[in-house]
């Protein structure tokens, strides 16, 4: 019975924790500009993160080694360091974006400028990471994040043209007024929002934090196979509501309030409140995950003791890195850079950096010395290889598209 509760908790946390500021911005923007023409990318991205996270979780459970530990072992010290610098930088950007997202959500609720909230958010993020036990932290914000389900209900309430929506999703075309390069740029952004590297660092390190073993593989599988697709459904709901409400008006969303607009149209103040609570919980939870991931990547490359499963005094360098990362992220947001733009950059660069961490995980997942009989099956290898090739293509295409489309402008 307790196991069933644990499994259910894991699934619910995975659903509520799936969405972060990157998903919110990407799904809303693509919904508003392209309708459902990019919905297929959410399917591809969600499947991708499922494959990636399942492998990383399995590797962590069987070998006891999280992703970045393996990156150095498989790529060597030199390439591993290059990988670390890229991954850390992008995770730090994402952390800043999440802190910005939390501040924006509070601004929407209080009408007090987000910049004034940023330092407070930074401090609270650090205090929570410092004091709250890992599982409590993970579960709390994951569960509260389920409030985003209001977007799903909003679709019904808005009485959309179902046939039209279905057609737009199943027969993707680039709408009038948008170019093809922009379409593909947004496709990459959407993919990066669904397949964030930090999620995998966090997921695999979390598996070690929670002392997963062989017996927990089933939890790993259920979290991933049930939780992630349902989480992806929430992102799809964001895209849908934006397509229904914002696209006909030709709105190009540049404020978080526009993401929540469809819900307030559907359910009024109550709906808006739920949406804001959901957005707050998701972005705050993601801020916790990203700052820990900043610590995980650095500590795991250098071999330092890391984790919340030991006393902070036993992992001092890890905690210093986490603290400095939160500080850096907070300062970055305080430079008054547009948080939405910051988010867009973080997800696009994340998409470009995916092969760096995906490859070592794929290799170790095939290594019998580490995995015993739990190596990838031939079928999963085929799928995993297809994704690797896809990620390489995405990686190469990102910077050119970024330049050509002037960052989706």
């Amino acid at each position, binding site marked *: 019975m307790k196991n069933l509760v644990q499994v259910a908790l894991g699934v619910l946390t995975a659903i509520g924790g799936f969405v972060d500021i990157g998903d919110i911005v990407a799904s809303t923007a693509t919904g508003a500009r392209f309708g459902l023409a990019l919905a297929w990318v959410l399917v591809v991205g969600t499947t991708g993160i499922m494959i990636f996270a399942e492998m990383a979780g399995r590797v962590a459970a069987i070998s006891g*080694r999280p992703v970045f530990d393996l990156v150095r072992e498989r790529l*060597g*010290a030199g390439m591993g360091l290059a990988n670390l610098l890229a991954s850390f930088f992008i995770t730090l950007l994402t952390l800043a974006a999440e802190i910005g997202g939390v501040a924006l959500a509070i601004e929407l609720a209080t009408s007090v400028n987000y910049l004034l909230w940023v330092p407070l958010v930074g401090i609270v993020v650090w205090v929570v990471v*410092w004091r709250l036990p890992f599982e409590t932290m993970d579960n709390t914000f994951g569960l509260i994040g389920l409030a985003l389900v209001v977007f799903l209900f909003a679709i019904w309430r808005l009485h959309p043209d179902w046939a039209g929506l279905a057609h737009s999703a199943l027969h993707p075309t680039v709408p009038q007024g948008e170019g093809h390069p922009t379409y593909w740029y947004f496709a990459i952004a959407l993919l990066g929002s669904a397949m964030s590297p930090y999620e995998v660092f966090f997921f695999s390190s979390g598996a070690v934090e929670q002392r997963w073993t062989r017996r927990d593989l089933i939890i790993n599988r259920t979290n991933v196979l049930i939780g992630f697709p349902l989480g992806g459904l929430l992102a799809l709901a964001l895209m849908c509501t934006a397509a229904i409400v914002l696209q006909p008006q030709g709105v190009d969303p540049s404020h978080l309030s526009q993401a929540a607009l469809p819900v307030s149209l559907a359910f009024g103040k109550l709906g808006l409140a739920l949406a804001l609570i959901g957005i707050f919980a998701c972005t705050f939870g993601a801020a916790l995950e990203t700052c820990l991931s900043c610590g995980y990547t650095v500590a795991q490359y250098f*071999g*330092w*003791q*890391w984790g919340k*499963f030991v006393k902070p*005094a036993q992992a001092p360098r890890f905690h210093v890195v986490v603290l400095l990362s939160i500080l850096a992220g907070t300062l970055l947001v305080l430079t008054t850079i547009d948080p939405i733009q910051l988010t867009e950059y973080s997800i696009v660069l994340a998409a470009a950096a995916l092969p760096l961490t995906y490859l070592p995980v794929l290799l170790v997942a095939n290594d019998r010395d580490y995995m015993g009989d739990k190596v990838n099956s031939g079928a999963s290898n085929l799928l995993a290889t297809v994704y690797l090739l896809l990620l390489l293509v995405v990686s190469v295409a990102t910077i050119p598209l970024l330049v050509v489309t002037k960052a989706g402008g």
Partner: protein
Amino acid sequence: MQAAGRVLDAGLKLLDRQLIDSQGMLAGKVDDLELTPSEDDPKVLYVTAILAGPGALAGRLGGRLGHLLERVSNRLRDTAEDRPARVPFGVVKRIGSAVDLWVAKEHLETDRVEQWARQTIIAKLPGAGDAPQ
């Protein structure tokens, strides 16, 4: 104890592996190996120590970045000596997917930067010594 006569490729089996101390705590990575000539025949080289820490890693990375890393790490370790932190090979217990050690990390030279971080920063924050969460 390792079986005698075992053959291994050092780059694959030793370099960049995680060091785990006698308490199961993580104690750094094998950044480099110290090779010492035999007293009888200088052409014969034995592995006498594992080198770990920024100073040793600097040697692997080479170039200006490497030298900078090495100088910074020597300063942090509070030593005038111009060499990286050394883990004598005699404390190695087992070479597997990680390298297990016979001693606790506090006894290793490589722990100095960790201790510095603990004393200078972490110990000043409330709750640093609280039970793990």
